[in-house]
């Protein structure tokens, strides 16, 4: 399902996982929600490479889980093998989340805007939707509580990256600028990793800014695939760094031997 990356000895899902993994610092304390194969692979890979102290609460339940493989649900117990704690959702998890003891969360949406806000609720008008989507779930909560938010998308196109969300289910940088700060929310979105490029966020406006291009992709292609105006950095846009053979080997053989990550493609 996934395509090879031009000039790199890997596929796009692998490049996305490795790029996500490299963004994780050693003091990351992360957890994951539903349909989060890329982040789950990223946390596991980071822990096995440069970030051995990284905390990952599988499904927000199983701390330090080390599953043999990743099943078809990132909310289910198939992910919990090797955990050193099974926490409880209300007692433990929400305490850690509200107080930002967990500091890292990743989400995607059917739509995302320039500020990293996401829609997973409806396509079309709220009261007469063309498509009723699952709903925001924890996005509206965790977007407001967790300081390091990461976004990703395996479908970088103008239907996903839109100028106006049909519904704001989860908050990224909100209206931009100091909106989060004014609302008393910590941090905000750090990166958005797509199948074409990596965005970071321009520090003052908090709009998505092109940070790196995957091999073979041009800035024009990114802009064409994006429904809002992409902030271009000063100077040249670097190419997304190439995964090492070790990273790919660990991802393919230890982290995700059954390629569950392809469920996102």
């Amino acid at each position, binding site marked *: 399902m996934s395509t090879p990356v031009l000039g790199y000895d890997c596929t796009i899902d692998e490049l996305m996982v490795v790029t996500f993994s490299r963004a994780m610092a050693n003091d990351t304390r992360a957890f994951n929600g*539903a*349909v989060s*194969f890329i982040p789950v692979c990223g946390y596991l890979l980071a822990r096995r490479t440069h970030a051995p102290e990284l905390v990952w609460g599988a499904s927000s*339940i199983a701390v330090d889980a080390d599953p043999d493989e990743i*099943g*078809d*649900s*990132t*909310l*289910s*117990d*198939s992910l*919990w093998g090797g955990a050193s704690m*099974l*926490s*409880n*959702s*209300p007692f433990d998890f*929400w305490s850690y989340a*509200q107080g930002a003891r967990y500091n890292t969360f990743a989400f995607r949406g059917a739509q995302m805007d320039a500020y990293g*806000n996401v829609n997973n*609720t409806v396509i079309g008008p*709220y009261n*007469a*939707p*063309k*498509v*009723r*989507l*699952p*709903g*925001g*779930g*924890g*996005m*509206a*909560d965790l*977007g*407001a*509580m967790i300081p390091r938010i990461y976004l990703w998308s395996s479908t970088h196109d103008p239907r996903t990256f839109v100028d106006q969300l049909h*519904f*704001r*289910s*989860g*908050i990224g940088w*909100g*209206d931009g600028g100091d*909106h*989060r700060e004014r*609302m*008393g*929310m910590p941090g905000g979105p750090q990166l958005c990793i797509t199948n074409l490029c990596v965005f970071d966020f321009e520090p003052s406006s908090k709009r998505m800014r092109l940070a790196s291009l995957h091999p073979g992709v041009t800035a024009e292609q990114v802009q064409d695939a994006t429904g809002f105006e992409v902030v271009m950095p000063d100077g040249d846009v670097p190419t997304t760094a190439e995964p090492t053979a070790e990273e790919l080997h660990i991802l393919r053989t230890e982290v995700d031997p059954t390629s569950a990550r392809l*469920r*996102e493609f």
Partner: protein
Amino acid sequence: MSKVTTLEEAAASIPDGSTVAIGGLSMNSAPMALVRELVRQQKKDLDLVAIVSGMAVDWLVAGGCVRRVLAGLVSFEGLGLAPNFRAAVQSGQVAIEEYSEHLLICRLQAQSYNLPFMPTKAGLGTDVLGLHAESGAVREEKDGPTGEHYVACTRLPVDVALVHAHEADERGNTRVNPKLVWMDNEIVNAATRTVASVERVVDTAAFTAEPERTTYPRFMIDTVAPAPMGAYPCSSFPDYGHDSGFFTEYSQAARDRETFTQFFQERVLGPETWEDFLAVNSVATGASA
């Protein structure tokens, strides 16, 4: 007086028009045997409270039992959208009252703690809050001394909570093995009455032998309905996982109205007893022993 009864009687005790909270999270630990029985008994006008749900809501919507869904998320995760829920909301046949997980949890907590509201930062800066501007069910506020924004989540009364657990005794002491990981206790605490389906009924001695493992004391559980594999096709950790095959077949059938009607009748509603249902779906019950 024993609290143990049948799935049929447990479901029969829930009147049309009730507000029913459904336990479990997504494909995990949903009280599917009880839900099936509600559909079989053709309940009407239920208001469902489902923090993060999927198949349970979809069955009840497919059965025409639902007036309104109060939810944070309804889906089959990576296996797709919940097809009947999706169609019913799109057509306006079922009303949706939109929350996030934590907004709904905080409304349940306001109810169980007997407080006018519970505060949270959940939902700030999203479109969810605007949907509640008129009812005031959740409302954005600003703290006087600090100027900080927060959301006040008001009480959510629940008539009955349905949860699935592993073991209960006749008195209602109930436990989840090896421990409760999901948020079922939030709906149990908020509900006027709770019905627990359980994998098996055990002697009270099982609880006194390991009192630290009891999840709900007897005074929180009103009715116990034995249902081995009672969360199928959802999971009941650590005894059995969800059945992806069922989810996929169900979703495929739902692409066509007639196919689905037949599938739903044959595979879900038709079998007379829960054991028949498991047999029709080729589920071995040994796994839960």
